[in-house]
């Protein structure tokens, strides 16, 4: 039992639902009914009154955790380095954004915080303030027992200077409160069939984002000690329970092999229609649990 994955769902999966056909109560119910044990959120999306929810909302939050038995896993946040036109955030300001979200994440019971830093280049190199800003809040993160996780997300692959930079930071500081979050979108190896995205056609990354980066899941082996959390990004699972884009049959055995026992937190990102994600997430959980059971059935 202890060497099994934990299953979770991010409310991000319900982006096309939340606010127009779904409130947080239903979100909890949909997640709990999958048998998942963890809930992931976006602070700025799912916390009414962010970053300082009032008592009524906090009561609602803890009531929902209590009723469903779900545990808070990861809270997503942003460090908006380009908050102002023409002037980037200072290290102080970047650290303040992290303090704001560490505080809220801790208040709500989260164990992981994913801050998304602004970038400075077409290949998504994060603003260099990321390192000193994070370093400044490591003590606080330690005190609050939260692991800060940058997200390794398409079009950034595993073998990339940005990821090397994160690993160097971990090695240099020796911290236990900074680690990698893997978004499984990097393993996408077949094109998206129906997708509307914020990146305009003709952009250099467009083809990469549509067709997939095809990162080899074996590359997880090299960064295994640094992986703290996995967002199980997916786009469409068909009526035969076949994922059209993410090669789970390759990803899951590697995760078992490296002994990963953290969360697989569903991140559905498909057609822009309401009432699609709920069943897609259920399909994904069947598929992932089947693959895990198949791995567990083979003697090591």
């Amino acid at each position, binding site marked *: 039992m202890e060497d099994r994955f934990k299953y979770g769902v991010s409310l991000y999966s319900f982006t096309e639902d939340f606010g127009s056909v779904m409130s947080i109560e239903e979100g909890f119910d949909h997640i709990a009914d999958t048998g998942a044990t963890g809930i992931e959120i976006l602070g700025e999306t799912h916390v009414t009154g962010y970053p300082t929810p009032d008592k009524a909302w906090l009561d609602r939050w803890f009531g929902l955790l209590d009723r469903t038995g779900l545990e808070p896993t990861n809270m997503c946040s942003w460090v908006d380095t380009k908050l102002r036109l023409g002037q980037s955030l200072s290290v102080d300001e970047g650290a303040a954004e992290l303090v704001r979200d560490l505080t809220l994440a801790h208040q709500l019971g989260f164990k992981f915080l994913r801050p998304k830093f602004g970038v400075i280049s077409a290949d998504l190199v994060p603003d260099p303030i990321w390192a000193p800003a994070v370093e400044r809040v490591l003590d606080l993160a330690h005190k609050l027992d939260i692991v800060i996780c940058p997200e390794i997300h398409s079009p950034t692959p595993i073998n990339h200077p940005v990821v090397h930079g994160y690993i160097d930071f971990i090695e240099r500081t020796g911290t236990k409160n900074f680690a990698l979050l893997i978004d499984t979108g990097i393993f996408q190896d077949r094109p998206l069939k129906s997708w509307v995205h914020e990146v305009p056609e003709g952009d250099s990354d467009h083809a990469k984002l549509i067709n997939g980066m095809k990162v080899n899941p074996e590359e997880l082996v090299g960064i295994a000690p640094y992986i703290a959390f996995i967002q199980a990004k997916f786009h469409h699972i068909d009526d*035969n329970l076949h994922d059209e884009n993410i090669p789970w049959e390759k990803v899951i055995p590697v995760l078992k092999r490296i002994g990963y026992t953290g969360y697989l937190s569903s991140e559905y990102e498909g057609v822009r229609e309401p009432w699609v994600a709920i069943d897609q997430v259920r399909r994904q959980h069947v598929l992932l649990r089947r693959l895990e059971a198949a791995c567990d059935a083979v003697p090591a």
Partner: protein
Amino acid sequence: MYEFQLIQSTGFRNHGPEGARDGVEIRLRLPNYRGMRLSLLDGIDVTLDGEFFSHEVTSLIVGGRMYDLAAMRDATTVRWAMGEHASVFVPKPGGLLPGIHHVKVAARVRSPYFPPHLQPLPVHAERLATIVLP
């Protein structure tokens, strides 16, 4: 809030103790535009992956209580309110395997203001839905 479809994605699950499932639950939104007393619902036919279960053998779970057809017909003071979920219980020993299933229901609604030859008038729905846990 309800999912828009009559047959809800969430709440489709096996029923009874794990390892000794005695059937399947299918969660529904109210199959009517007004809340109704249970005696106006003359049972629900269900077809699961082609296997038919008549309204005479299925039951309805509403407000935490289970009503078979006879109990439903007697329930002239119990309401299935607008906004409230209810689940059809389908007696199927062992339940269903995790996976995608074809689910069809006909909720037999009696509307007294409709002509007598249209009583009950089944409200139909069908879809693929997913059982997650064994």
